[in-house]
């Protein structure tokens, strides 16, 4: 027992010995504390559009830093007024600081991102407030309103982010969190540097350590050249104001995304100081953070008729010259009807596309699904699904834009689960013919579908970043992706799309009102049912017909007929992109005016 007591005593004394004699960590002259690492932050890469215009740049801002230990009692009223904050804000921050006494000797941020003008006000009276100082930092600057969802925002990393990226960041660092900023964070962020200094026992910096031999300069982030056309993007943003939905434009010959708009979106004014607007953005019932272009799964509506038609052609169950009757709809069973609008009957494929006949495409899907080649409908629909997926629908496209959604295309399993094995037949799922029912696709997928038709049968995976010096892109973006439908069959649907726009007034074409002479636009309207109110307005088009330069999809929630909102928006954007401006034709000007003024927000139910 005495031995135990002596051992315990020896333990205490040994520990004291090591603490007081051996360990010089706690001595003021300690070697370790005498090195001071001053971290140098790199400037973040600039984001350019496809024409070399800056869409995200950098500007100088100031953070007000404070070392709580060095702050004597001060005039809170005066400081609050100089900094332009409430006095209660200062009190709260200082209450927070005093909770972490262990950090009181550290330089901690009090207020972030002051403009140079505001900072000048502070620096004039800075001598009155020891312990406070300004720290220059570069923050994002947005010369063009290219849309917050496309660009993404840069924000201070949180605990969650730090855990996910262990060893890459420290708290207080900034990182791109959504959009292009997140997609290309690794290129944009650059590398931090540091200067090493020697400190004396009073904690004052004396001289660079080893004359700066060991210092490392910060490496600025790489600039990113995007595929975005800033003018088109900005014009699209204007057109989409006060509408809910999305517009995606792609250059078919490369898969480069020319424009990607989600509305309502985050305003670029809010992006620069995202933290300040965070709760405002999060509480908006229209969910501006939600990037509808890649994350919303919508029924495609009639634009999907193109896919069904092409599958029918490839399967050999449809010939362009086949005609089917349609008397205000397709009748099945004894009393059921899938309605259609008034148009001449019967129609061939070209005119069925032009006039978007529902009845015609019911016959087409019937032929596809009741094909004798397949003993049961299960095999037929799974085969159909494989075709559909080859159009880039129902799966992630693999774009470089973050948080892309795959969407859904039903299979035999979907229906067996719902109706039981053998409990369903073609008429049960007839609405698939016109792009309704269990189909969900994103606006980017619809735009890509349009690009496939424009290319006559293939696409490049849509992407947003171009290769440039120091920035590489995945080689997959340079590979053609073919669908399972032969390219020759595409020639059979394009004339119908051309007529839909250019058939002339009274021809029955669904989008003749958006025709522009000389643009040679091919389009397809869609009106998709929306269980939450009015139908969604959908339109895809590409132009010119031969050698297309742009393929675009517009999806307007609760917009009604495709031709009412989606088609004008898409056609205006095509005209803007191809001609650089909207023609002075009074009809086009009036159309543009109607879209710019149009406000559909009252029709949309928030979440």
């Amino acid at each position, binding site marked *: *027992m*005495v*031995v135990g*007591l*002596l*051992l*315990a*005593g020896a*333990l*205490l*004394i*040994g*520990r*004291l*010995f*090591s*603490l*007081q*004699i*051996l*360990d010089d*960590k*706690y*001595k*003021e002259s300690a*070697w*370790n504390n005498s*090195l001071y*690492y001053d*971290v140098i932050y790199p400037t973040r890469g600039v984001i350019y559009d496809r024409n070399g215009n800056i869409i995200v740049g950098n500007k100088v801002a100031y953070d007000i830093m404070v070392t709580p230990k060095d702050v004597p009692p001060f005039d809170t009223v005066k400081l609050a007024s100089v900094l332009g904050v409430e006095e209660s804000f200062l009190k709260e921050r200082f209450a927070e600081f005093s*909770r*972490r*006494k*262990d950090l009181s000797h550290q330089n901690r941020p009090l207020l972030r991102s002051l403009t140079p003008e505001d900072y000048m006000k502070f620096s004039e009276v800075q001598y009155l407030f020891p312990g406070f100082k300004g720290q220059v930092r570069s923050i994002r600057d947005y010369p063009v309103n290219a849309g917050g969802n496309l660009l993404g925002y840069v924000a201070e990393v949180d605990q969650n982010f730090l855990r996910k990226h262990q*060893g*890459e*960041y*420290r*708290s207080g660092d900034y990182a791109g969190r959504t959009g292009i900023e997140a997609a290309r964070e690794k290129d944009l962020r650059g*590398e*931090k*540097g*540091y200067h*090493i200094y020697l400190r004396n026992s009073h904690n004052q910096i004396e001289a660079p*350590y080893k004359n700066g031999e*060991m210092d*490392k300069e910060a490496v600025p982030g790489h600039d990113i050249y995007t595929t975005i056309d800033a003018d088109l993007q900005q014009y699209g943003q204007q057109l989409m104001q006060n509408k809910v939905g999305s517009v995606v434009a792609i250059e078919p010959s490369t898969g480069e995304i020319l424009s990607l708009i989600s509305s309502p979106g985050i305003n670029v004014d809010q992006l620069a100081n995202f933290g300040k607007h965070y709760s405002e953005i999060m509480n908006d019932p229209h969910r501006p953070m939600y990037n509808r272009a890649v994350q919303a799964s919508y029924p495609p509506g009639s634009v999907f008729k193109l896919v069904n038609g092409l599958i029918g052609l490839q399967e050999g169950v449809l010939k362009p010259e086949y005609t089917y009757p349609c008397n205000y709809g397709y009748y099945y069973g004894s009393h059921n009807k899938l309605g259609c609008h008034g148009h001449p009957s019967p129609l061939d494929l070209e005119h069925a596309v032009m006039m978007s006949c529902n009845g015609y495409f019911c016959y087409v899907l019937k032929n596809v699904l009741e094909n004798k080649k397949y003993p049961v409908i299960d095999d037929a629909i799974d085969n159909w699904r494989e075709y559909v997926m080859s159009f880039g629908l129902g799966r992630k496209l693999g774009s470089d834009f973050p948080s892309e959604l795959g969407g859904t295309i039903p299979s035999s399993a979907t229906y067996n689960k719902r109706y039981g094995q053998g409990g369903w037949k073609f008429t049960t799922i007839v609405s698939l013919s016109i792009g309704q029912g269990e189909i969900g696709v994103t606006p980017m997928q619809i735009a890509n579908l349009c690009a496939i038709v424009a290319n006559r049968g293939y696409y490049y995976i849509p992407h947003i970043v171009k290769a440039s010096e120091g920035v590489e892109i995945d080689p997959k973006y340079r590979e053609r992706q073919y669908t399972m439908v032969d390219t020759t069959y595409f020639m059979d649907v394009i004339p119908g799309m051309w007529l839909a726009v250019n058939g002339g007034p009274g021809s029955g074409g669904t989008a003749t009102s958006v025709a522009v002479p000389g643009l040679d636009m091919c389009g397809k309207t869609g009106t998709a049912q929306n269980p939450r109110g009015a139908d969604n307005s959908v339109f895809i088009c590409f132009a010119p017909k031969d050698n297309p330069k742009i393929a675009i999809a517009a999806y307007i929630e609760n917009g009604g007929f495709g031709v009412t909102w989606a088609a004008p928006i898409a056609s205006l954007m095509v005209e803007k992109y191809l001609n650089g401006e909207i023609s002075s034709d009074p009809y086009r000007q009036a159309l543009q005016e109607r879209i710019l003024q149009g406000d559909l927000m009252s029709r949309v139910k928030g979440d």
Partner: protein
Amino acid sequence: MGEKFKGRGVSQSIDWFIVVVYLVIVLIGWVNIYASIHSSDPSSIFDWSVRSGKQAVWIGTALVLAAVILFLIPPRIWEGAAIPLYLGVVFLLVVVIFVATDIKGSRSWFQFGPVSFQPAEISKITTSLLLANVMSRQNYKMSSWKWLLATLAVIALPMLIIVGEKETGSALVYIGFVFVLYREGLAGWLLGGIGLAVLLFVLSLTKSVYVALLVAIAVLTLSNALNSGKLVRWLEIYLPILVVMAFFPGAWNWMMDRLIPGHSLLGDPTLDPTVALAIEGASGWSFLMKIKPEVVLLVISIAALPVCLYRSYRDKNSFIALSVLVYILCVGLTFATPILMTDVLKPHQSERIEQLLGLRDDPGGVGYNVNQSKIAIGSGGLFGKGFLRGTQTTYGFVPEQSTDFIFCTVGEEWGFAGCLVVVVLYLLLIMRLMSDAERSRESFTRIYGYCVAACLFMHLFINVGMTIGIMPVIGIPLPLMSYGGSSLWAFTILIFIFLALYREERKYF
């Protein structure tokens, strides 16, 4: 013959050694309380408005109490009074929960105007008395479950109430009474086994795997040495090796700090990863960082196991073989601790354990306290900064300086030398109490003496251990030195009851 034998006089019957050590410790405490509140605007040590002046009053009254216990109260009454006193204090312990004002989350103080008093302090005395009362009975047998349970109940009752008052620290002191049970015949291996397991668990959580392994090796080699009666050999060979090994991680770090500039910054979780990479990249010695001290220790010790087994076979000594097995269990426990904490225990359970051990960042800033305390003590060096010259303690970096963290002031102003003196004084006091107890013919006195020694030891070890970071932060005072009347009076009574009992025997035998 008619003349009554009056017994030995005051000078011979009182153990003056204990009295002197007691006085010296109290005085050192007083001086350091003055130093701990010393500021740029000094006041006299007798200024009654500040703590040093108040402590002078407490010391004066404590001495009066001591004299009363020593000369006025007949020592014989303590044995009989043990039960009513114990029950009375238990009653107070319960009452205080309902009437106490909340002081830092604990409800354990009675407030009478300017004076406050904590029944938990007195409860140590009454528990010791009752323990001595119960265990000194004629028919008492430790091996009987009935008696053992009764004994444990005497300890556990006030302990649990004090836990209920949220004074977990004071409650932990009661664990010290287990040493008394051990002295009175509790099976040592049981005590040792459980103690070792708990110790390793705590050490691997609060310290490091290295420390836990080293302690396991120390304990096992020591018990082998004691088993085969080779203590001297252990002290000559193993102890020096173990001490050297104890400094190995520190020395290793010390070397790395010099080989790799900035190495010591690497442990800082707020360090910028770029800087961390820079530090690693800047030196050609960075590959050495892959060598972890605990792995070195583990490899060496595992390599030694076959040798041990051979010796066990050669000497037909099964104790060695058993030790090898226990060591493997220890290694398993040590490395399993993190898994136990994260996977086996529920989150709220491991959270409680971490809170108790002071591992959790809490609003009170426990980590801050320990760090500041270590800086204060560590900056003292060999001889300290000198009386009233401490910067860390004077400028208020260390909280609770005059009460729980009074040892910081000693460490900073008097250095290692001062700390050594204080710790040795306590050890002398405790050992003297133990040897006096051992010499006593009355089992009541003996058991009570061991109780006193155990209380002092627990307070000393927990309090000093806390200030130097080897024990979790448990808010208990350093006996006789920390500022405060309750504590000083309680320890004075505790010690002087023993002196009175001992004197009673010395008078006649």
